[in-house]
């Protein structure tokens, strides 16, 4: 309990420090703000384009697919604010031996490697996403009860854990392959898998489907709560996958650290 309090205190300080950094490098913030705005609009536009010739795809109506696109913006913006900037620096920290300093600190190395930086620029994406989701829900005449919102928040957090653990697991590989700094770009691309219905991967090989399965839950499960189409499996699988992936990725990180040889003298 004391440990948790300590980490909350550290994180509160990090929020303030990151905010000060954002104010100091405003041009960088505006650039990130513009890019996030453009990408959030792109996600919606691309879904509009893909569904322009068909009102129903894989049993999902056009409105439901657009809601998924909006949900993706909301979800991914939270992920980007909290974690993605840290993963951008991940391989560089290992390649240039900065991990030495991280391991010397009396704080958990996973926490420093994945929670140090906060990307405030993605806030605009969150706003666009929330506005678009609200608009789509009103278009579809869906009203939300407290229970729905509560269920949505729980599944949203579980989905964050799934995506975080997946990214952490993959980025841990850079302890062996330090040159692969673009591995994070592959993860950004893989994120797009989450914004489409899982039915479209069913024709793929069983190996591919099992690998992609946790990712297909990320947006779909919380979205199904909003659409009031949730089934028992949509609740159980995110719980199992999030817990399993979190434990596996953490153990993998600890195992990989044994092979870290440092880049400094």
């Amino acid at each position, binding site marked *: 309990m004391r440990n948790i309090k300590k980490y909350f205190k550290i994180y509160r300080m990090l929020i303030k420090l990151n905010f000060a950094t954002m104010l100091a490098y405003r041009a960088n913030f505006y650039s990130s703000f513009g890019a996030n705005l453009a990408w959030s609009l792109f996600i919606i536009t691309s879904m509009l*384009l893909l569904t322009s010739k068909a009102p129903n795809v894989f049993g999902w109506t056009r409105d439901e697919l657009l809601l998924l696109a909006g949900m993706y913006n909301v979800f991914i913006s939270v992920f980007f604010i909290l974690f993605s900037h840290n993963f951008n620096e991940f391989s560089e920290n290992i390649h240039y031996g900065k991990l030495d300093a991280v391991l010397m600190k009396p704080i958990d190395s996973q926490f420093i490697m994945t929670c140090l930086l906060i990307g405030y620029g993605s806030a605009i994406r969150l706003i666009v996403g929330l506005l678009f989701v609200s608009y789509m829900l009103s278009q579809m005449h869906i009203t939300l009860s407290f229970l729905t919102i509560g269920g949505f928040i729980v599944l949203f957090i579980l989905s964050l854990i799934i995506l975080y653990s997946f990214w952490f697991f993959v980025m841990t590989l850079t302890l062996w392959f330090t*040159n692969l700094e673009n591995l994070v770009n592959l993860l950004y691309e893989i994120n797009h898998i989450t914004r489409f219905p899982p039915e479209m991967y069913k024709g793929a090989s069983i190996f591919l489907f099992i690998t992609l399965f946790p990712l297909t839950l990320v947006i779909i499960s919380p979205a199904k709560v909003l659409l009031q189409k949730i089934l028992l499996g949509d609740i159980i699988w995110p719980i199992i996958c999030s817990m399993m992936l979190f434990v596996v990725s953490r153990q993998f990180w600890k195992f990989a650290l044994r092979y870290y040889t440092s880049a400094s003298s």
Partner: protein
Amino acid sequence: MRYFRIFLLHFQNLLAHRGRSIVWLFIALVEALIYLAFIRGVFQEHSSLSHWTLPSVSAYYFLLVATAATLMTHIEVKILHDDIELGQIDGRLLKPFSYYWQNFYFEIPYRFFQGVLGILLCVGLSMVFGVTIFSPLSMFQIGLCCLIFLLAYFISFTFKMIVGILSFITTDIRGLNELLTILIIIFAGYILPINLLPGILESIAYALPFAYIIYYPIVALLGQLSVPMMLQVIGIQIAWLVGFAFVYKIVWRSVLRQFASVGQ
């Protein structure tokens, strides 16, 4: 010969970091396969759309992997990161080679390597899914296809060079680059073949240069362009290339005049 040596040096560097190129290729593959997986659902509702069938659209996305890996250059990233942010530009400007060609020989090994891997991947995918990717073309049409690919490469490279050298003045082009990436994804034919775009967007795509970098080379390979259409595409590509070359010269002169560097 000296240019060939520069090419070999860069190729050596590329082979030392080949893992990165393989990851870039995977990124192109994931992007194309996601869109294809979704489009399969659209074709469950329609047997054909604007002359596209499921096998032909699958061939389009498979070829997209190889074409994007070969033709879509990313020299602006190198200019911004290495030349401007790391300050390597001073040394480059002092070299007795044109800056344009220095970067050309830097980029070409990456396109060559990723292109070869992309073709292998494309052929592999077509065999696994039983899709025919190459249509029977006459020798003349193959020649025209090669010309379309060559011109597409130069359009892509010159355009990205213009974007890259703008960072001499602004020192940060990330925002602009993100915006251009989105425009390219939509209007070059990454999401959908251009003639499947709805109404006004289709017309905009034909008016922009991006379709001449990705979309037209692919449909030429698929045998969807007649010889007169191929010649028309080549004519428009030449017009874009001349236009970009002219803009590059003007921008280059302008940025050199304004460029100031602090020695290291």
